[in-house]
Structure formats: structure tokens, C-alpha cells
């Protein structure tokens, strides 16, 4: 099974996977320079689920694009598996905010998931098998022959997640992955991601503006705020493995953490 394969491939829990030091980012130069991120530090250990929460427009997408190697930060370093990166790294896979556009409409869902594997040089039979396994893992068993545009938004997002999983990266970077689906679908997808993290042992770094979502999913919530944005708070959630949309959100610790984050965000 994939589950077993993937779990075996992941490094031992607690190993340091990403290390961000003094990262700054701005758009434009000189007088028109627009500072977005300043002196950001972040550590990601294997098996961790980290949420980065911040208000709309604070620079979350910019941060994720820097972490994924799509943008070069103006200052600071990003280390992945012990080496400083200067571009996309095979240990990192991304699920984009604009997921429906990031799937290719001329490919079936199976081909979409298998495409990055083809890029790695994997043979057709093998990559189609891996694609089907990962589609099954996200609850899309037997849907490989459909095209993305034949699917609902929630299903497309599952395909994007399957593609990132199939790539067999160590860290999954997700940019507001559930921002544009309805509430019920959103809860289903949140629970799917928690399940995948527990069963496959992948490390997830998810960016969101939704405080409840950040808390519900994560082991550690990193709050970014101010302009230029920097880390203003870090909270270890401590809810353990078992999460439930009702019970976890009714936990008094949930309410406390929520109040603390709201307070931090309001003050700035």
C-alpha cells in the first residue's frame, strides 16, 4: 500500500527539515520598495503540522512562495534537509491557493497526479499505479479517468493534494487550500489532511487567515502580523492525535488560544 510506502520514506519524527533564518522579502526597488516580510525565523521538524496564520494581505502567499523556492528572498536563508535552497527543492511539494488553475485541464486527473513523476523519469505503468494509489488515499478511488473540469471544487482540491503526496516530498506547503469551498467540504478536507498527516507521516506547513482552521489542524500555530510582517507569536496547541470538529473546537484550550491569537492580531 501507498500508506506503508510513504510512511517508510519519511524521516524519523522530530528531525529538522526546514530552517528559516532572518528572511526578508520586498517587492520593487528603491523609493517604491514595498517591504512585505522582515526577519522571519521558522523551524519545521519532521512529522509536525504547522499552521501560519495572519490577516488577509499580510504576505502569506509571499511567504509560502519564498519557502517553496519560487521567489528569492531579499535577505536571509532557507535550509531544506540541511542545504540552503535557491529554487524549488524535491523535498518540497506545494498545494496552491489557486488550485483549480494549477491543475491542467487537458490532462485527466490521473495524468495530473502522475505528471511530476514523469518529470522525475518514472515509467508510465509505475507512475500511473502511484497516481491511482494516491487518488485513492484522498478519497478519489477510480476517478483517474475524469478531467478536473468534470469535478467539484472540493474534488479538484483533493486531486491537487494527491499530486503533492505522489511527488513524495518530505514537506507539504499549502496556501489557504480550503478558502474557496463551502463549509461542509472544508471540514471534510480538513479532516482528510489530518488523516493523511497521521497515516503517511508527512510534514505539513499550512498558511491560512482562518484562526479556527489554524488551531484545529496544527501542532504549532505561528502568528504573523504587522507591516512588514514578522512572527509575533507561537502557540503549541497540544490537542494530540484525535481531533474532532465539535469536541476539539469546544475544548477550553481552543477558546483560550483563539482569544490569544485574536488579541495579538487586533493589537497590531
Amino acid at each position, binding site marked *: 500500500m501507498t500508506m506503508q510506502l510513504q510512511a517508510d520514506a519519511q524521516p524519523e519524527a522530530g528531525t529538522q527539515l526546514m530552517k528559516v533564518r532572518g528572511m526578508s522579502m520586498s517587492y520593487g526597488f528603491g523609493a517604491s520598495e514595498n517591504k512585505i516580510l522582515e526577519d522571519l525565523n521558522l523551524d519545521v521538524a519532521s512529522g509536525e503540522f504547522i499552521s501560519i496564520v495572519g490577516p488577509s494581505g499580510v504576505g502569506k502567499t509571499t511567504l509560502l*512562495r519564498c519557502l*517553496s*523556492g*519560487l521567489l528569492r528572498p531579499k535577505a536571509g536563508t532557507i535550509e531544506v534537509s540541511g542545504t540552503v535552497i535557491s*529554487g*524549488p527543492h*524535491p523535498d*518540497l*511539494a*506545494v498545494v*496552491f491557493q*489557486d488550485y483549480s*488553475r*494549477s491543475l*491542467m*485541464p*487537458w*490532462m485527466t486527473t490521473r495524468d495530473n497526479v502522475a*505528471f*511530476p513523476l*514523469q*518529470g522525475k523519469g518514472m515509467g508510465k505503468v509505475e507512475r500511473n499505479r502511484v497516481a491511482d494509489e494516491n487518488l485513492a488515499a484522498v478519497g478519489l478511488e477510480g476517478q483517474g479517468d475524469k*478531467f478536473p*473540469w*468534470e469535478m467539484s471544487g472540493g474534488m479538484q482540491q483533493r486531486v491537487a493534494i494527491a*499530486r503533492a503526496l505522489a*511527488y513524495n516530498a518530505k514537506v507539504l506547503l499549502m496556501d489557504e487550500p480550503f478558502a474557496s469551498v463551502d463549509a461542509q467540504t472544508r471540514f471534510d478536507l480538513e479532516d482528510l489532511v489530518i488523516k493523511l498527516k497521521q497515516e503517511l507521516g508527512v510534514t505539513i506547513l499550512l498558511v491560512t487567515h482562518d484562526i479556527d482552521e489554524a488551531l484545529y489542524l496544527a501542532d504549532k500555530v505561528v502568528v504573523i502580523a504587522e507591516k512588514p510582517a514578522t512572527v509575533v507569536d507561537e502557540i503549541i496547541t497540544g490537542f494530540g492525535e484525535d481531533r474532532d470538529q465539535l469536541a476539539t473546537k469546544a475544548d477550553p484550550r481552543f477558546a483560550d488560544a483563539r482569544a490569544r491569537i485574536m488579541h495579538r492580531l487586533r493589537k497590531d
Partner: protein
Amino acid sequence: MKETTTAPGWLLVQRVAAIAILLGLWSLLIASGTMPSMLPGVIQIFSGIGEALTSSIFWAALSRTLLTALAGWAIASIIGVLFGLIIGSIKFLDRSTSILIDFGRSFPVLALMPVVIMLLGSNARMEIVVVSLSCLWPVLVQTIYGARRQEAAVADTVAVFKIPALLRFRRVLLPSALPFVATGVRISASIALLVAVGVEVISQAPGIGRQITLMQQAQRWDLAFAYLIFTGLVGWCLAVALQQVENRLLIWKRQEND
């Protein structure tokens, strides 16, 4: 794209009626005696087409013209798509070549013919060169447009998953530009036939164009018109066939737009 709400049967009746009216007007015009007497009537043209269909010279000439047109068109399509994708997807190439390409597309290729004939002679090779030169620009320009319009999210995906350049070219760039490429290829298919016949008329290279001239010189106006109209019909069939292929290849595009 909006579909008309007319039932297909009714649409067919309308189309047939339009053709009938046109033929009727033609007959009237001939009957009125205002046109030069050499202009053949509808019946003469139809019997001319009948005669042409049984003439081996006609079929040989037509297939010759079609083959040269096809060859020129294929060469232009391959070169146009290849260079179009490369130019359109690389910003600095796109910017630096845009003046050249705008100039090239408005260049009257037919006026180059005397030079090409002098270099290559009145033969199929010359004809293929002129056809390719005429077909190249629509394909090239359309492909460049298509390659420019890459979705940012798709480009990010390709970068994140480190897709190698050749694979990206074949499975991302080409399909995403395909709606534009198809238009260019379809336009140049009709240009190919048009130019091939024109070149044969002017240069007397063998083919249907030359046959048309010969018939005119022999005062067989009915046959000249019959050849002309039948060639037009073939061109129209080609365009319809290409449209069918295009529709099949681009199902995803239409679905996406819904």
C-alpha cells in the same frame, strides 16, 4: 460559444435555400444578357463538373495541387508551431522579435514569386516554398499569442515540481497554446490551397491552376468555372474536417469555458 436554438433540420433547409437562391440569381443574371456572353450558366457549370469528375487529367491536376498545398502547409505548421512556442514562451525573445514578426506577416509573399521562380524554376518545389512562406505567418503569430498566455498557476506548478524543459514543452506549453495554434493552422490550410492555385495560374507550374488557365485559353469557360468551383468545394471540405479534429482535441477548452 452560444449555440443557435434552431433545430438542425430547419437549419439545413435554410442553408439549401440560400444556395438555391444564389444559383437562381446567377441564372437570372445570365438570362438577362447583361453579363459577357462567355460566362457559363448554372447548368453548363454542373455539366462541366460532371465532365471534370470523369477526366483523369482533372484528377491528376487536382491531386498534384492538393499535395503541394498540403506539403507547404505541413512544413509551415511544424516550423510555425515550433518557433512560435519558443518565441512566445521566452519573454526576451518575444520582445526582441515582435517587430520582425509584424513586418513578416504584412509582407506580400506573392510579390516574391518572380524571385523564387528565378531561383527554383516553375515547379512543385517552388510552389511548396511560396505556399509555406504564405502559411507560416498565421501559424507563427497565433502560436506566439497562445504561448504568451500561460496561466501563472500552471507556470508555478511546473516550477515547483521541477518539470524538465522538453516535457514542459510537449505536455504543458503545446496543449495550453493549442486553442490558438489550431486557429492558425486552420486559417493557413485555406491559404495553402488558395496560394497553390494562384501560383499555378501565374507561373504555369503543373496543377489545377494551370488547367484552369488552359481551359480559359481554349474558350472552355464552363470547364474553367467547373474546376474553380470544385476546387473551392474541396477546400471547404478540408476546412470542415479540420474543424472537426479541432473540436475533438479541444473538448477541455469548451468545457472549461462553460
